[in-house]
Structure formats: structure tokens, C-alpha cells
């Protein structure tokens, strides 16, 4: 388990939420925890996956997904390779490039720079 969130976080979250609901002065504070409590109630397994398995099943949270290059969209321009701060990308000019998942730190720079939107998030 190498996630940065701790397993106790879910309990902490719930405890905080219930306390705020009870003690805030106005409706804003009293209702602020609702989005958290309702998702915790109906989608708890997603929270557990985030905390314990570093997984985002929707493929939305970048840090919990693999960034992969779609070979059909990649034109091999090399922009991503030049911009990757840890040198995780390799590939020949005009050939589909590839990201080495062991090196990738999921900063998302490549996805931002790719002019062809070829870099996609993929659930682990």
C-alpha cells in the first residue's frame, strides 16, 4: 500500500462531517458535508478503492490511473517525450510513442502538451 491517503481517512471524514453538520451556524456549514456523506453512503467502495488500492474505477483521477498513448491517435511528433520531466517516454519519430509506467510520475504534462490529444487516462 503506497497511497498517500491513510486507511483511517474514511472514519475521520465521517466524523468531521457529522460534527460540522451539528455545530455550524448557518445552512452553508450545516449542509456542506452532504455531498460527501451521500457519496460515502452510496459509493463507498469507490472511496475504499481510492484509499486502499490506488484505483479510480471511473478513470477520472489522474494520479490513480495510468497515462497511456493511444497508438491510433499518436503521430510520433515527440513533443511529449521532450516535455516529460522524468524521461518516461520513448519512441521513434513518426512512430507511436510509449510511456514507461514504472518511470511515469503521472504529472500529466505530456497529456497537456500533446497536440493530438493522444494521451489518455486508463483505469489501473
Amino acid at each position, binding site marked *: 500500500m503506497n*497511497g*498517500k*491517503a491513510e486507511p483511517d*481517512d474514511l472514519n*475521520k*471524514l465521517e466524523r*468531521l*462531517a457529522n*460534527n*460540522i453538520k451539528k*455545530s*455550524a*451556524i*448557518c*445552512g*452553508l*456549514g450545516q*449542509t*456542506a*458535508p*452532504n*455531498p*460527501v*456523506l*451521500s*457519496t*460515502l*453512503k*452510496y*459509493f463507498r467502495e*469507490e*472511496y475504499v478503492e*481510492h*484509499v486502499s488500492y*490506488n484505483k*479510480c*474505477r*471511473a*478513470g*477520472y*483521477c*489522474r*494520479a*490513480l490511473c495510468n497515462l497511456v498513448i493511444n497508438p491510433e491517435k499518436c503521430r510520433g511528433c515527440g513533443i511529449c517525450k521532450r516535455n516529460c520531466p522524468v524521461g518516461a517516454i520513448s519512441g521513434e519519430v513518426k512512430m507511436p510513442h510509449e510511456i514507461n509506467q514504472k518511470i511515469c510520475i503521472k504529472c500529466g504534462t505530456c497529456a497537456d502538451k500533446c497536440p493530438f490529444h493522444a494521451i489518455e487516462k486508463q483505469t489501473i
Partner: protein
Amino acid sequence: MGKKSIQEIEEIRNRKRQELELRVNTKADTREKHILVCHGTGCTSSKSPKIIENFRKILEEKKIKNVRVIQTGCFGLCAKGPIVIIRPEDTFYAQVKPEDCEEIIQSHIVEGKTIERLLCKDIDGTIVNRLDELNFYKKQKRIALKNCGVIDPENIDEYIAFDGYKALYQVLTTMSQDEVIDEISKSGLRGRGGAGFPTGKKWSFAKQNEADQKYVICNADEGDPGAFMDRSILEGDPHSVLEAMAIAGYSIGATQGYIYVRAEYPIAVQRLKVAIDQARDYGLLGKDILGTGFDFDIDIRLGAGAFVCGEETALLESIEGRRGQPRVKPPYPANKGLFGKPTIINNVETLANVTRIILNGAEWYASIGTEKSKGTKVFALGGNVNNVGLVEVPMGTTLREIVFDIGGGIPNGRKFKAAQTGGPSGGCIPAEHLDTPIDYESLTEIGSMMGSGGLIVMDETKCMVDIARFYLDFTVSESCGKCTPCRIGTKRMLEILERMCERKSRARRFKQIRKISQ
């Protein structure tokens, strides 16, 4: 122009009503045609003012006399905007561009040929000629939005034509203060601003409190991300809110009203200004309204731009010229409100229902909806749904009907994951509760809230942890900071969620700290 007697108002009503028959009756006996163009915020941002201008120019060039171009409020189907409707035949053109005006005039108006290309396609692919043939409209019931998209909001005569200011006259001449409050109580109307407090009860509290001055406030601060119900009502039918405020003023004994409206709604503010001026000019606001001896006037106050200013006591602080921070309740505004005087604060949509209740009777209104939630609710439908727009449905309609029948389902063949109601104070409703009839109680029971009416649909590509993070991020930045649990507690919660979504590393946190301390 100038002050009008009730006879003169009735004359305007009769004359205008005949003239406008073609707006509501496809068989109207008329040689005129009206081209209605949506001039709400949505369509305006996709060039509807240019479309209006083009139509007017072309009509003038071609010297066509019996066709009028009217700017209206929102028709509701914002996803297909800009929308142009031609009446009396009620032809519905979607996603019209300024360049299309020439063809519409030449082909539709001059040659009488419908332009297939611009007709709207329903979700199932069928081409629709008329607005009410769309599935989007079939399950809707328009009460608060009755005039939106029908009348020109900047023309008081058009409002009068459709029973405008009739309820006010009826109230002032035939009903006692208590009778008005009774009628509203019997209708079962509850506050549409979020909490669902019975409106009649609120008014009766304010009436019972003796004071030399009382106030009526319309809350038009609408700060929920994704919500635009109140804006659409103000943009499409501002007089209905003014009239309801005057009725409320009479029933509690107030002579002054304020509309607290978001400064971020320039079109709504402008329409309100025009409407107030016109109503004053006709003597429908001001001293001795319609010769009944009742005085009531309304002024606009611009919002201070914070979400919390929509909370009623923070709103009072803001109008009084202080920083918008909530007060501890009690005392409630009905006892000690604006400048310490008894005050009622009602939401725009709540007020928009009032005149309809007076005119059609409390029984009629109470016959719509569920046991504890009467009437209709307007929702701003958004997110991953085909028909993004404004919908008004009877209370008790299920979420499934709203998302799939009215909303046309989820685009790109994806699956429904959750619906978020009530904005930052509400919650996410999963597929297993799609068949819950929506009202105040049922939504609270399943952990969400009616809220003001934002309804955001999410498909399977949305991460629920991230959604929670998004809303919490909003509340953290909008918390006024007056009390500790909200100021610090929500921030701590947000940090935990961010940790989950971003695996926020130590290094990044150090970077943040460095940035702050520089």
C-alpha cells in the same frame, strides 16, 4: 403613459389579449406572424441578439409589414439554442445562426415553406415541427414558467394581456390580509429556495408582528453552481415576481420591497429595472396602487457576489451595508429582519407561483404534487444528459422521468451513474433510487436535498470521490469563516479528499507551503 385606472388596465388587457391570441393558439384568426427569439442568457451568449437584429433588418428591407420580431425569455431547451419560434403555426427552429435569418424570412414567411434543415430533431431522431411535440415538453407542467417564452418581458402590456396584475387587484379589492395568507397556506406552497418552509406560515408570522415598518425581500441571489431557474424567471417574466411581492406586502402590511439580485446576472437586472419603471409608470407600484389606497414600492439591491449572501440573514446584513455574514437564529427575520423590522424573504420561484395561486385558487394548486409538497418545481437540468435545459415538473415526478423521458437519457451510449440535486448542500442519488418520486421529504430521506433546483446528471466516467471533492472545494472557498466548524472543518475534509484523489505527495505539499511563504 402615466398612471392607469383599473378600467384602463382592463382595456389594455382585452385589446392586447386579442392581439396576442396567436402566441397561445395555433388556430388564431390573424394575418400577423410573430417571430419569437429567445433572449435569455443561454441563447444570448450564442448570438440571439444578432438574430433579432438581422430579422428586423431583413423585414424592413423587404418591407414586410405584418410580421413582428419579439424577444422572449427562456423556452427551456437550452441545449438546442438559439431557438426561434414562429407563431401562430408554432414552428420550432433550433440552433439558428444569424446567417439563417434571410432563409427563414424568404422561405418560411414569404413562400410559406418550412425549412426542414432547421427543424429540431428529437432524441429518437424524429423531426419535430412544434415545440410541444418534443418529448422534452410532454411531462412538463408550466406554472412558474407559464409566461417564459410567451411574452416579451420588457413589455408590461404583454404581461397584463395574460392576466397580469389581475391577482393584485383582486387581492386589494376583495380579500382581507388574513384571507390572502389563508389562501397561500391552503395551497400548500413551500419555499423553493431550498428549505421548503411553508410560505403561508412565514407570511402569517410576519403579519402577527406589529411594527411601524415591515419589508418584503425577494431572494434572487442564486449562487448554486449549475442553477439558473431564478435567472430564467426574472429574464422571462419579471412582472410576476413584482406582482407577487406587492401581494405579499399587502398581506403582511409592508410598504417596501427589495429584490436582492446577483450582480452577475446583467440581463435579469436590466429586465427588472425596466419592469419596475413600467409598473411605477402605470401606478401598479408606488403610492395608492390602482386607487385602493395601498402603497408599495420595490427597489433593487445588487448582490455582493458571495454564495453565503443567499442565506437569508447574511442577505439582510448585506442589504444593511455590512459584510454578508449569517446571524444566529432566532430571532427569525419574520420577527426581527431588515433594520430590525419584521421581514419576509422569499425565493424568486416561490413568488412566481403566488399570482397563479390567487387566480386559480388554492384547491387547484393543492391538487398538483404529492401529499406534503404541492405544485411544481423548476429544475436546471445539466451534466451528462441529452436535453440540457430548464424543466418544470409536478412534485412527485420521478428522477427517471426527468433524466430519461424529459432529459432524453445519457449521451454517447454511456450509463447513468448518479444525479446530484441541491448543489453544494445536496447529495448524489444513485441508480437504485431513480424511481423515487421527487419531493422535499423523499430527497432528504435518501440523503440529498431539494435545494434550489440544480440537477446534474453524471455518467460512469465521473468519479464520485472527485465529485464530493468538487462541491467541498466550493463550500470551502465560500465559507464566510464566522464559525469554526465550517471554516476549519470543511477545509480538513477537503484535504482528506484531495489526498485520496491526487495521492498528494509530501513534496507537493512542501511546494505549496513554499509558494505561500514567498
